[in-house]
């Protein structure tokens, strides 16, 4: 097929966008390169299309977005004077604002008290950074020491409680029949049962025996009467 200038012109965009393949493309280029009219046209269109693709979009004017919003959603109400002031006050009385304000106030009080600033006797010197740091450090150490003491006290209390509980358990588990039975032949402080006596009972019996011996040594009369 012989390519004419009209055909080259008609297929120019196809050529530039890579839609012409193989023999068609070769025939197009053969004519475009040899034709004095088509060669500059192809070059200028190619250059122009490349330049247009590289062109950046213009920035939107800032006022345009607001103008569009005003036009579509309606103009924003601008209330001035006393009405505007009252509207602002009304906004402050909402529960959400009150809750937020209370939270901020509580946080401020905690921070101020943690920094050691006295609200009852405020002093300008207390607001110096060095003083705030010193007092905050002091408060932190005090809190730490109190915490350590509290934990230590708790440990002692639990230890005493556990000991008392253990003693109560020991007393409850001692049955009546295991107590020492009185017998004329028995040695004081010892039971005539086969089972050995409890250590505490044995100690008490030994103590009584020792005291009796001491009394006998002090008062021989008693000794004679007991022998008789």
């Amino acid at each position, binding site marked *: 097929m012989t390519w004419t200038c009209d055909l080259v012109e008609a297929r*120019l*965009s196809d050529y530039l966008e890579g839609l012409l393949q193989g023999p068609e493309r070769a025939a197009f280029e053969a004519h475009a390169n040899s034709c004095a009219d088509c060669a500059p046209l192809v070059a200028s*269109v190619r250059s122009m299309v490349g330049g247009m693709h590289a*062109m950046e*979009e213009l*920035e939107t004017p800032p006022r345009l977005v607001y*103008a*569009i919003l005003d036009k579509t959603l309606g103009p924003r109400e601008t209330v001035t004077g006393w009405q505007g002031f009252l509207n602002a006050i009304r906004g402050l009385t909402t529960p959400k604002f009150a809750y937020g304000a209370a939270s901020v106030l509580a946080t401020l009080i905690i921070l101020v008290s943690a920094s050691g600033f006295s609200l009852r006797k405020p002093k300008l010197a207390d607001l110096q950074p060095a003083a705030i740091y010193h007092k905050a450090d002091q408060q932190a150490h005090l809190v730490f020491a109190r915490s350590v003491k509290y934990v230590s006290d708790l440990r002692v209390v639990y230890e005493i409680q556990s000991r008392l509980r253990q003693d109560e358990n020991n007393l409850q588990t001692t049955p009546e029949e295991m107590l020492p039975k009185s017998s004329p032949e028995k040695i004081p402080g010892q039971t005539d049962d086969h089972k050995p006596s409890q250590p505490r009972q044995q100690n008490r019996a030994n103590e009584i025996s020792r005291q009796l011996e001491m009394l006998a040594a002090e008062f021989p009369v008693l000794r004679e009467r007991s022998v008789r």
Partner: protein
Amino acid sequence: MRRHTRRIFNICYRFTGNRTEAEDLSQDVFLRVYRTLGSYRSAHGGFATWATSVTRNLLIDHYRRTKRDRITDSLDDKMPVVENKESAGRRPDEQALLGELSMQVQSALTRLSPELREAVILRDLQQLEYAEIQTVLAVPAGTVKSRINRGRIELARILQQMGVRPA
């Protein structure tokens, strides 16, 4: 919202060549989109394609409405120097914003017929696909290809007349 605003503003500006007109038309486009949002169906393509279609229709309406004014203007100034005409009434920041090529192309675009102009703007400046342009213009695929091709050749010839040489 801002992305669509920028795109629609650019289409309007490239079509009219006038910043103030482009701003007014962009507002009108969004107003029409807002009012006819209920008629939007996904069958029209994406929202961007539909909004572009609305923009195009509004631009054509605007072109027809202002045709008489333009004829009067051209009678007053039969041999306009394109660069001077474009420079007139444009702010310095606009001058700086537009590069030399951008200004020359913008000047040439305003001298194209509206059918060819819109096809070239959508293809080479907005870089839409042929199928999207077909949806926006509501014409057959062959017509879209033909308009883009003729528009490019016509634009290149106008630029040659203006003394712009290919790089």
